[in-house]
């Protein structure tokens, strides 16, 4: 029984056409066929404007594909009906820049999905909230409003908010962009722990998909890589295959170009 359950891919896209979030009629990627197994750690790389965020929004169920099929843990996406909401909540999405709710404090932002889906009062989310605040080192900023925080803390708050419902699959849009090396290391270490099995998940590995404008930082952390360029999505494989690749853009994203 468990063998059948684990054989269901976390993300299964077949001949998918991805529209832009700002203009859904404009295709940013075509013929995307991609299978993400449960427990995988993927990085989808591409230059700015390649459509990485749009692909992630589609994977996150925010919009529907223009063509093709997309199944998330065995069920068609996107899911908007209340009856299938529990399945939808197995997926967490961290937006580029966080997209926190500016009228709520950091603690209120993180607690919102917990309160809404479990119908809890503000005083009833204490233990999970404090755990998430500690995990992301946000306890000193719990009462701050997002606009008063730096980019790194806003992004951590968005991560904590996405983790609140303990999703099985976590999608993160360019989490390392604009961060200094210390912050980047924290993110890489934390995502690595989640991927291997964090205590917050009782040791169960989380499936992670990350978009990135550079591949270099993910060496030794992510296990699978893909490239999005010129409406074409291509699976690259693991780091060893990346190093054998002679595609100029891949080498450029790996920081190995001789300019």
């Amino acid at each position, binding site marked *: 029984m468990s063998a059948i359950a684990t054989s269901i891919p976390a993300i299964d896209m077949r001949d998918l056409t991805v529209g832009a979030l700002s203009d859904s009629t404009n295709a940013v990627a075509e013929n995307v066929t991609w299978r993400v197994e449960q427990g995988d750690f993927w990085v989808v790389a591409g230059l700015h404007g390649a459509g990485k965020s749009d692909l992630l*929004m589609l994977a996150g169920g925010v919009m529907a594909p223009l063509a093709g099929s997309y199944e998330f843990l065995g069920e068609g996406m996107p899911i908007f009906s209340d009856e299938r909401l529990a399945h939808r909540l197995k997926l967490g999405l961290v937006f580029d820049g966080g997209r926190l709710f500016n009228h709520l404090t950091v603690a209120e932002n993180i607690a919102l999905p917990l309160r809404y889906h479990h119908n809890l009062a503000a005083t009833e989310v204490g233990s999970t909230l404090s755990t998430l605040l500690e995990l992301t080192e946000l306890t000193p900023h719990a009462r701050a409003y997002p606009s008063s925080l730096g980019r790194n803390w806003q992004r951590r708050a968005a991560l904590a908010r996405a983790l609140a*419902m303990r999703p099985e699959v976590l999608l993160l849009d360019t989490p390392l962009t604009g961060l200094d090396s210390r912050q980047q290391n924290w993110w890489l270490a934390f995502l690595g722990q989640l991927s291997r099995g964090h205590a917050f998940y009782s040791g169960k590995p989380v499936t992670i998909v990350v978009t990135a404008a550079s591949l270099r930082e993910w060496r030794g952390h992510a296990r699978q890589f893909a490239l999005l360029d010129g409406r074409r999505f291509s699976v690259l494989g693991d780091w060893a295959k990346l190093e054998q690749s002679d595609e100029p853009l891949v080498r450029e994203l790996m920081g190995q170009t001789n300019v």
Partner: protein
Amino acid sequence: MNGACPVNDSTTQRSSETATGFVFRSPLPTSYSNFIGRLIFRFLFTIQGIGAFALITVGVLISKFGRNSKVLRPLVRREIARAGTNLLPMFCFLAAALGFLVIGQVVSWLSRVGAVNYLGVVMVVVVVRELGPLITALLVLARVGTANVVELGTARATGEVEALEALGIDPVHYLIVPRVAGMAIGTFALTVYLIIGALMSGYLWAFLQDVPLRPDQYFQQLAASLTWVDFVLLALKTVSFGSVIAMVTCYHGLAQPLRLEEVSRATVRAVAQAVIGCVLLDAAFIIIYLATA
């Protein structure tokens, strides 16, 4: 040379016409009919959009009634405070001003024709049925409706709505339902306070003008002029005003993709359309009053 003739001819003709004469003498240029056509289509699309948005909101309100109550109830309370309690000081001032205004104008005319006994009737017709609800609606629109468009428009422009959807939270349930409920209740409550305050201050002004009318006579006149229809229609009217303001302002803030620089324009559009909506609704209630009279 001949090629320029038609232009010169028309210029000569136009100079001998009145300013608006060309409208009646020459065929209407395509651009004018396009302009009017666009206006009509935009109006119809707006009606369609607001109507669909209102139906979706009502559908969510009914289908999710009582759900997520520990999150939604504080939001509804906050909206009642915003559209009701927080506006009370301003409405106390307005109630006093409205009473003075109506009685001040009416007393001098009623005294001339010896019809002071109709003071209560005038107050009921003017304040309870018309000015009270309409003034309240317009002020709620100015103070809270505009804030609605700005808040929701900014949330839409900065991607907060997508963030809600990604968290599995229905944006209509979380953002719109509390606003509609809060503004409907708040507008109703404020109108009641405004009317009570205006009726009281009206008598005060009449007393200061030496009108030979005892308080008990004044309130007897008011009570005699009020029927159950007034109470029912007042409740319906104010709740409808609050709902229309909430729907129109929320529609312009949330229902369409917005960029930050478009929020101010959306606010202006929402205010104009909400005013038109309230006035049309008021006209419909006048017909109902006349039909039940």
